[in-house]
């Protein structure tokens, strides 16, 4: 400490406290006391114990600031001299972060590590995080989401069902026999009848196990197996917790882009967000085919027509054809591919 190696002099500029007045100055330090002196006159501008100084961190080659206890500031471009002085007088190392940042072949390694981490985050950490989030979600949360979603739908698009009581009872009891065969049992689900209005023939599942079936769909379907096929499909969504997964995944991707991105530019950020949106579309298409397969298997297990769902899609195509604009981007596209997949899977299940 006390032993001063070759006397250190750093030249720079000095500002009085809170003033933009600048004076050419020299910074020296001896025996634990730092001094800023005028470059020409050599008069003492500021003085203080080294331990009472605050020195700004090194970032690239930007000027360093040394702030004295009285608020006056010595500023210099001589980063290396400051680092040497810090090391000698305060036993500090050059900042760890700056050491990493320096332009050096080691950066290639860092690039590789970042690339691997990014791919790993998206491929493995994101799905795992989604699974963990699904697992730790208290049952109250899906109930909360389901109930409030149904409440707001009831206030806006849906109306009370006008289906005959008998028909409703028949469907409900068939639905319960289907639901009986799931791990959660019949009580994990709640079938609700509504008039669809603008959403027309439709059925959808809420995360709490509530499944909404519209009168329009029931009227459109020629037989019970078609309706049950749709209900089995919605049960599949609930059993696989699809809506919760989609929600967590979207939140996870947004967080990744926001936090990891940092400085990637607004244009690139936009591209990533749009790209993530497209990926979500294919993700939900995967969920649809998973629910389709579940429907086939559940129907077969219940001794019903396994391809009941395909039958409904046939009717939908006949009635609405390709001229239904809603079908184009809807989440339940009744494409020939999809019908074919259902039939193929039904044949496989039947052959077993």
């Amino acid at each position, binding site marked *: 400490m006390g032993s001063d190696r070759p006397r250190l002099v750093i030249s720079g500029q000095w*500002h009085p*406290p*809170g*003033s*933009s*007045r*600048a004076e050419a100055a020299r910074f020296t330090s001896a025996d634990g006391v730092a001094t800023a002196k005028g470059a020409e006159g050599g008069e003492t501008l500021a003085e203080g114990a080294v331990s009472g100084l605050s020195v*700004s*961190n090194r*970032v*690239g*080659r*930007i*000027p360093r*600031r040394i702030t004295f206890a009285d608020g006056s*500031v010595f*500023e210099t471009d001589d980063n290396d001299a400051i680092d040497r002085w810090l090391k000698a007088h305060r036993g500090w190392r050059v900042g760890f*972060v700056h050491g*990493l*940042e*320096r*332009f*050096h072949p080691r*950066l290639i390694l*860092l*690039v590789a*590590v*970042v*690339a691997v*981490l*990014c791919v790993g*985050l998206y491929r493995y950490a994101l799905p795992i995080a989604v699974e963990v989030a699904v697992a730790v979600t208290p049952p*109250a949360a899906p*109930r*909360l*989401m389901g*109930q*409030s979603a149904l*409440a*707001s739908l009831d*206030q806006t698009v849906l109306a009370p069902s006008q289906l005959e009581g008998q028909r409703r009872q028949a469907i409900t009891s068939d639905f319960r026999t289907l639901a009986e065969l799931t791990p959660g049992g019949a009580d994990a689900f709640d079938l609700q009848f509504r008039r669809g209005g603008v959403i027309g023939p439709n059925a959808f599942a809420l995360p709490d196990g509530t499944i909404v079936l519209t009168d329009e769909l029931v009227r459109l379907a020629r037989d019970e197996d078609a309706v049950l096929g749709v209900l089995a499909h919605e049960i599949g969504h609930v059993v696989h917790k699809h809506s919760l997964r989609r929600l967590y995944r979207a939140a996870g991707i947004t*967080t990744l882009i926001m*936090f*990891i991105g*940092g*400085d*990637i*530019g607004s*244009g*690139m950020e936009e*591209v990533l967000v749009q790209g993530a949106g497209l990926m979500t579309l294919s993700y939900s298409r995967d969920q649809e085919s998973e629910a389709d397969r579940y429907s086939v298997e559940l129907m077969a297990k219940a001794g019903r027509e396994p391809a009941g769902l395909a039958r409904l899609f046939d009717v939908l195509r006949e009635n609405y*054809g*390709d*001229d*239904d*604009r809603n*079908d*184009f981007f809807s989440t339940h*596209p009744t*494409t020939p591919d999809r019908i074919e997949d259902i039939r193929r899977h039904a044949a496989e299940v039947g052959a077993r």
Partner: protein
Amino acid sequence: MNDASRVIPAGGNPQDRHTETFSFTGRAGEYFGIWIVNILLTIVTLGIYSAWAKVRRQRYFYGNTELAGRSFDYHARGLQILIGRIVVLVALIIYAVLPYIFAYANMFVIYTVANLILPFLLLAAMPWLIKRGLRFNARVTSYRNVRLDFHGGYWGAFVAYLIGPFLATLTLGILAPLASRWMWRYTLGNVSYGGRKVACEPQLKALYSQWWMPALLVLLGVAPLTVLGLGLFGWASSGLATVNENTVTTAVFLVFLALMAIYGFAGLFYRAGVRNVAFNAAVFDGRHEFASRLGRRRYTWIAISNFLATIFSLGFARPWAAVRMARYVASATAVTVSGSLDDYLNEVEQTGPAIGAEYMDMEGFDFGL
């Protein structure tokens, strides 16, 4: 003091006036290291380091932006930014979850009311958050040991950030120059340095002279593309289409991309022109005049080639792109000084609450100028 007061005010003897140009001295290779370490440590610390990453990034860009041989500095601290971000995050979560809780508790009346009111509350809070953000950014910025300050109020932000964009959208961009005028008057015209204010009064006529070209571009590009897109969509859903659905989806997507490209192109053109007008109409302390001479084509070219380079390098060209843009923008910005800048600046003292008060500030919403 004597020197400064002897100076002839703006418009006086041209011999006393000279131009100081901004410059950016950062290097792509150097920033690359900072950038990649920022990302690495952010991932490794599960996002917590992002606050410190921001400080290092800002310090690098501010510290390399020079005027008259001296650079700017950025003084925010990582912890301060982290706390601000946590506060905003918690507030957003509460905002998102609150209606569900009302619905769950069977308070459907409150639920409905909350659903109606909350978006407006958020909208009403926006100008306040923006104002705080701008003030924070100004107060953590210094030049020659004196901090900037920002004096904009709530209603100024309300007009500049809510009314302006709303009017511009409602009139399909025809009133965009009016919105730009409000925006620049608010963001630049409320800045002060050592108690001396910047005045910024961009004239509508000058703004409209920068407007008609990009407007024409949009008109010529967007109209046919929209017809094409709608036509494709109609054809695809008419049942006449014999091609498979993916082909049509791709076509519609391509039309969408082209639309975005035209809007982006026109937007860059307009932004550069408006920045020139705003800076050329800005005066510091009634005597030093700002100037901006961005070439609209050059600026657009740099922005677009930066964007493409970033995409095709999977993001790794971003440091080069950021440094390239900063260098161009700084080189096109200047201050026409009356009298000796050094003598003038030697008189500038820190005033007001700028220093210290910043610790009570929140980062708020971060908008780059």
